[in-house]
C-alpha cells in the first residue's frame, strides 16, 4: 500500500532557531505534524531531495509539497491556516511586520551570530557594537507600550523571528562573555523577552540550555579553527 503524502511534516535540527520558529508557529495554530530530526552535519538523502537548492532546514512538507525558509513557511502557515493569525490583517501593518522581520534577519541575527560564533578581537567588538545599534531600533519599536511586537496580547510573526534573542542570545553571551542585551539599556526588550519566554506555547518548547551551551561552544571553536 502506498504511504499517503497527506499531512504536515517538518524536517529540522534540534538547535536551529529557524526550525524553532516554525515549531512555535505550528503550535500557535494547533497544527498537527510529524517532526523529522535531521543531522545537518551528516545530511540524509531526504533533505537533498526536499531542498535541493540550499540543503538547509527547516523544510515543511505539506501534502507532499516541500517548502524551505522559515519566514516563507510562517507566511504559508498563516495563509493555509488563517485562524490565530501570525501577521496583522491590515495591509500597512503587514508591510511593517515584513519590514521588521527582514531587519531582524538581515541585521540582528547576522551581527549577533557573527559576534558570538564567528569572530574575536576587533571584529567581534565591531559586531557587538552593530548588534547593539540594531537592537536599539527594536527597543524603540516596542516603545514600552505593548507586550509583543504587533499585538498586545498575542505573539506574532515578528516575535517569532526575534525569538532567538530571548533564548539563544543569552547562551551566546555566556560562551563569549560579551553583553549585548543588557536589561538596563534595553528595558522594553527585557520585558518583551520575559513575556515571550513565559508564553505557554514558548516556554514548554525550548532546547535544553546545557545542550545549547555545549553545542554552541563547539561551533565557535570549529568556526575559529580552534579544533
Amino acid at each position, binding site marked *: 500500500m502506498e504511504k499517503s503524502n497527506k499531512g504536515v511534516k517538518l524536517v529540522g535540527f534540534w538547535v536551529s532557531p529557524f526550525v524553532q520558529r516554525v515549531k512555535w508557529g505550528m503550535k500557535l495554530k494547533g497544527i498537527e505534524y510529524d517532526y523529522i530530526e535531521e543531522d545537518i552535519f551528516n545530511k540524509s538523502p531526504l533533505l537533498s531531495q526536499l531542498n535541493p537548492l540550499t540543503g538547509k532546514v527547516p523544510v515543511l512538507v505539506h501534502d507532499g509539497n516541500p517548502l524551505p525558509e522559515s519566514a*516563507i513557511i510562517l507566511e504559508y502557515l498563516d495563509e*493555509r491556516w488563517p485562524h490565530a493569525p501570525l501577521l496583522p490583517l491590515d495591509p500597512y501593518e503587514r508591510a511593517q511586520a515584513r519590514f521588521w522581520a527582514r531587519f531582524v534577519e538581515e541585521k540582528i541575527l547576522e551581527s549577533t551570530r557573527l559576534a558570538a560564533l564567528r569572530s574575536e578581537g576587533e571584529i567581534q567588538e565591531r559586531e557587538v557594537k552593530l548588534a547593539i545599534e540594531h537592537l536599539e531600533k527594536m527597543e524603540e519599536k516596542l516603545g514600552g507600550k505593548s507586550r509583543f511586537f504587533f499585538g498586545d496580547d498575542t505573539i506574532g510573526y515578528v516575535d517569532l523571528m526575534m525569538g532567538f534573542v530571548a533564548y539563544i542570545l543569552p547562551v551566546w553571551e555566556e560562551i563569549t562573555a560579551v553583553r549585548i542585551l543588557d536589561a538596563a539599556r534595553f528595558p522594553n526588550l527585557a520585558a518583551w523577552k520575559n513575556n515571550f519566554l513565559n508564553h505557554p506555547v514558548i516556554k514548554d518548547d525550548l532546547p535544553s540550555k546545557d545542550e545549547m551551551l555545549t553545542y554552541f561552544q563547539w561551533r565557535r571553536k570549529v568556526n575559529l579553527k580552534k579544533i
Partner: protein
Amino acid sequence: MGEVKVIGGWFSPFVKRVEMALKMKGVEYEYIEVDVVNKSPLLLQHNPIHKKVPVLLHDGKSIVESAVILEYIDEVWEGPNILPKDPYERAMARFWANFIDEKCAPATRKALWSRGEEREKAVEEATQGLKILESEVKGKKFFGGDQIGYVDIIGCFLAYWFPIVDQVVGLHLFTQDKFPSLCKWADELCDNEFIKECLPDKERLVDRVRGHSQAPRSL
C-alpha cells in the same frame, strides 16, 4: 484610493519594480526623483533606518523595501494578481524572489565589479544561480506562467540591467548560448507594455555605468 507617491532613483531596478507593479494595477502615482548618493532629506525622513530608495508613500504612510512594497501593492489594489492566489504557489514565488535577491543579485554584482580571485569566485556563483533560474523558467513564458508575476518583476534587473552592464564591463556572462531560456524570458519581459514603460534609457544607463567603471559601486 488615496494619494500615491514613489520616491526613487531613475537608474534603480528596485525602484522600477515598484513602478511596474503600480502600472500593472493601473494605479496613478507621483514620482519623486531624489539624490540617493547624498541622501536627500526626503529619504532620511521616510526611510530613516536604511536610507534607501524605493519608498512608497500611500496617504503619507511610508512603505520601504521593494519586495515588501510589491506585496503591499498586491494586497491594497484590485487588478491583475502580482503574486499567485494559491498559498503554495505564493510561497514558491516568495522563495524564488528570495533566491534572486539573496543569491543571484549579490553574486552578479560582485561578478561585474570585483577583481581577481574574488571575481572568479563570484562569476562561478553567478553562473550557478543563473543556471538554476534557466531551468526554472525553461518551457514557460514567464516565471509567473503565462502572465508576468512577482518573480518576473523581482528578476527584471537580470533581464535588463545586468545584460547591459555585462556588455559594458566586458564580462559576457549573460549570453544566448549559455542561457537561452533566460534570454528568451528577458526579451518577452522587456517587451511587455507595463515593463517597457519603466525601463530607463539604455544609453543613459551605459553612461552611468561607464562613469562607475572608474569607481565601482553597486547598481
